[in-house]
């Protein structure tokens, strides 16, 4: 016992006071951000090379996306046609290009998925459920813009330019946050990250 007559701390020392720079949560958070940007930059540098190497497959993916959009629109209207990457709805045609497939959103989502501390099992669940969710969001986005082109043609360019980009990161963030809340937050490892 010490001079004060009190029993020593069971851990043997006083807990370290947390400050802005030594707070382990802040350090882990900064590490997450740096890892996220690092993975994203590497992925973004590699992507143009991959897109050239896999040009045929990418074109096929665009055609499939046009087909999926056309199939969903066919449920509500018979005046729909799909030809390769071109979708026509009530006489209004759109071309599905690389950006329309949601592949950029998936790249950002994968970077966030890989840099957030979680088990590989959780990441696999995120991969298996998150990528299709982003693809579905993207298909709905295309259908929405096509409908705008048909019924509010004067607003199409504006919506195509601003709505598309503005919803990009919101789509990714919502899927990523859902993954954290529903899958990752149940892990002890994540609790340690947040502790």
């Amino acid at each position, binding site marked *: 016992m010490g001079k004060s007559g009190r029993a020593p701390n069971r851990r043997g020392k006083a807990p370290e006071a947390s400050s802005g720079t030594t707070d382990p949560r802040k350090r882990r958070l900064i590490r997450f951000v740096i890892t996220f940007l690092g993975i994203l930059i590497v992925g973004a540098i590699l992507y143009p090379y991959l897109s050239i190497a896999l040009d045929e497959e990418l074109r096929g993916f665009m055609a499939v996306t046009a087909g999926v959009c056309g199939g969903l629109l066919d449920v509500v209207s018979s005046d729909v046609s799909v030809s390769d990457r071109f979708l026509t709805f009530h006489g209004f045609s759109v071309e599905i290009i690389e950006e329309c497939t949601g592949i950029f959103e998936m790249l950002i989502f994968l970077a966030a998925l890989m840099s957030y501390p979680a088990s590989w099992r959780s990441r696999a669940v995120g991969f298996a459920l998150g990528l299709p969710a982003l693809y579905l969001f993207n298909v709905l986005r295309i259908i929405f813009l096509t409908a705008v082109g048909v019924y509010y043609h004067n607003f199409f360019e504006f919506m195509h330019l601003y709505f598309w980009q503005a919803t990009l990161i919101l789509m990714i963030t919502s899927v990523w946050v859902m993954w954290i809340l529903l899958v990752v937050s*149940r892990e002890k490892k994540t*609790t340690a990250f947040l502790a």
Partner: protein
Amino acid sequence: MLFRAPAQFAFRQLGIYKSGLMLVLEHFTNLIPFIALTVSLPGIRLKRRLVRLGLGLAVLAVVHFILIVAVSAVYNTYALSPTAYKYMFPLLTVNDALPLVLWFLLFSEEIIAMFRVKKRDAAVEPTL
């Protein structure tokens, strides 16, 4: 359309006439998701929210300026070629992801509180 006129004016004043502005204009809309993420995050006092919002928007504005200069340099050198695409794509992708990064950095405490799951197990009691 919202950004084009003031941006073109600003660049003319700076002596930049041949810019890649039109190539990056649509990517300036990343302000909107940052605002949406900031407004929707619960449990923040108004003053803190507004200060952090202003800071984040200022950072995004600076990044946009850097983006225009960088894309203009690439465009003037390589025009719209596959080589230009290889340089522009990483810049634009990082710009698009920046609202998420800024949101996480500026509101880290609130986001961590939102994600934290209360556990009854004493072994995972958070350290102070």
